[in-house]
């Protein structure tokens, strides 16, 4: 019975795979040439890298909703009932070697995050990559026993989690006077994008680190 199910699923999956592959080989070239359109409008976008221009300007809606989804996921995790440990919530101290390494690496990671954020204007990089580096620094600090898991979130932390989304919405609403939501005036576009991205980096770093630091706490039994 179980093997029959396996065989049926594997057969259906391989049929799906063949159909997908076949349709890709048959696919005509897209009628709309998006890369040319992006290149043509790049001067108006305020940044020099096409992916950043698409993310923060041409398709800013996507990024706005993306940071909202990130925040919603963290809020969903916080809404689950958690086993707040009765014992002291400090993580197990790691070896001195790891702690020293973490102390040395984390400032460098913050520096790298700042560079990646700035580099996003003209080469691969940007808020999400920089936020991921920041989150990695947070996880490293926790694993080295230097940063406790999140049990209750203070006011400052909550503000940091929300600031990216709030600044993004504020900028979107402010430029609405010009016409449409998130359509920046070309002269201001670069500065506005940098302001949004800097705040996004902070929020993304905190949220991604929080996804780990909340979950790692919820497993500790009282």
């Amino acid at each position: 019975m179980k093997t029959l199910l396996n065989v049926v699923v594997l057969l259906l999956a391989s049929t799906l795979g063949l159909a997908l592959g076949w349709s890709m080989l048959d696919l005509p070239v897209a009628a709309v040439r998006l890369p040319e359109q992006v290149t043509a409008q790049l001067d108006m976008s305020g940044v020099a890298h096409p992916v950043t221009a698409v993310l923060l300007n041409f398709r800013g809606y996507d990024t706005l909703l993306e940071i909202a989804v990130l925040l919603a996921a963290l809020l969903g995790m916080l809404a689950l009932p958690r086993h707040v440990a009765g014992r002291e919530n400090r993580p197990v101290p790691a070896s001195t070697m790891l702690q020293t390494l973490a102390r040395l690496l984390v400032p460098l990671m913050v520096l790298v995050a700042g560079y990646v954020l700035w580099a996003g204007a003209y080469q691969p990089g940007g808020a999400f990559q920089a936020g991921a580096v920041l989150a990695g620094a947070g996880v490293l600090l926790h694993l080295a026993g230097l940063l406790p898991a999140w049990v209750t979130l203070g006011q400052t932390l909550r503000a940091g989690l929300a600031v990216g989304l709030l600044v993004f919405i504020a900028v979107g609403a402010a430029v609405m006077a010009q016409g449409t939501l998130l359509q920046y005036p070309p002269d201001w576009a670069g500065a506005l994008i940098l302001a949004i991205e800097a705040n996004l980096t902070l929020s993304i770093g905190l949220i991604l680190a929080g996804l780990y630091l909340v979950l790692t706490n919820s497993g500790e039994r009282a």
Partner: protein
Amino acid sequence: MSAALVYALTGAALFVFGVAGLMLQPHLLRKILAFNVMGSGVFLVLVGLGQRAGIPDPVPQAMVLTGIVVAIAATALALALARQLLDLQGEMRLPEEELDKDRLDV
């Protein structure tokens, strides 16, 4: 066959592996991993098909970047829910799967 098409076809294969894993693996952690494999396959298809013409298309690349971050958030939430199920039931399986397993064992 261009390199871009190889990426897209690899992505399709990954997607199919993910679908099969999602249906066949009863353990929730494996289901979540299979779901991530599916997602990675979709990202490869988007990026691969986007550069068939030879030049990379920034629009699918930006969408994939968005997708990766959303996938991380969804995975973390799924893990939190799975952990909750583990605390409540002592097992990382969906109740229906457990029922199926009992029936099949008899």
